[in-house]
């Protein structure tokens, strides 16, 4: 028999499993509710929701006006609401103004429209450099912005979560709302990229 390792040295997946089993035994967590949350966020809630919001804003000026006025309410019109979406503010990019979203403290993120944050958003380097040197950071993401483009960085918090409304790409004038959706990525709605150009 090898010596029993200290609990802190045991794999984190075992610790998670141990905590889950205790919480279920105590009746503090309903396994069906647990599985539903995991399934919802792993499979159903994702940046496709946000892409539909953006595509509608690009094609429906009245909707865009409502979105800029009250992001949370306009997003809820499409059925997207829930935790971490209580106050969503939409930031519109223009040819001379680019918005970048970060959460410097942890990883606040508008779940109902973008799903859970990706790895790079939670990374310490992203969280510090977005504020300190956004232009260099964006260049590393492959987004070179000219000196005439102002960059504004917004720090999401538990009170306000930001989502970027990217510019509608050139050459998409004849595309329908549904055809525009695939051009709108999570990266574009966080401000580390522009919307894709049509193939």
């Amino acid at each position, binding site marked *: 028999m090898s010596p029993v390792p200290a609990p802190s040295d045991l794999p984190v997946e075992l610790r998670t499993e141990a905590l889950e089993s205790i*919480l279920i035994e105590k009746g503090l967590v309903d396994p069906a509710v647990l*599985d539903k949350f995991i399934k919802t966020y792993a499979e*159903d809630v994702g940046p496709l929701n946000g892409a539909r919001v953006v595509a509608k804003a690009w094609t429906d000026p009245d909707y865009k006006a409502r979105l800029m006025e009250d992001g949370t309410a306009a997003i809820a019109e499409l059925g997207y609401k829930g935790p971490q979406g209580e106050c969503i503010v939409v930031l519109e990019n223009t040819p001379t103004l680019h918005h970048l979203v970060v959460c410097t403290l942890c990883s606040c993120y508008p779940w109902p429209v973008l799903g859970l944050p990706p790895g790079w958003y939670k990374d310490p380097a992203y969280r510090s450099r977005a504020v300190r040197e956004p232009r260099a950071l964006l260049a590393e993401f492959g987004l070179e912005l000219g000196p005439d483009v102002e960059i504004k960085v917004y720090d999401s918090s538990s009170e306000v979560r930001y989502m970027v409304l990217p510019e509608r790409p050139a050459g998409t004038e004849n595309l329908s709302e549904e055809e525009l959706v695939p051009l709108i990525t999570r990266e574009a709605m966080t401000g580390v990229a522009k919307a894709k150009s049509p193939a």
Partner: protein
Amino acid sequence: MSSSLLQLDIEGPAAPPRSNGELVFAAPWESRAFGLAMALHDGGLFEWEAFRQELIKGVALAEAAGGEFSYYRCWLEALQGLLATEGLVDLAAVDDRTAELACRPPGHDHRHHDHGHDHAGRH
């Protein structure tokens, strides 16, 4: 869980959101840790802001400590810390259970597929 499968919203012609980006969970345990916090909050056992403050502290500590950063490790630590503070879970009991689980024979979860945990369905 077949009922939730039936409720899955697959309306619209576009691909499911997972094809729109990388996987949000790097390993099944991350999704379990995430789901536990959501389910506990949903059950009214703590305020989300209380959890968030624990998470902020944990993230700051992990960054100060250096080494490889694991967001969901911070998440799990924050959750355990809050549960202990609220008197909901005794962390010594979690230690004991973790050690018990570690004593299972290797490969245990590949031999029985009917024992309740579903490996979180990642592919």
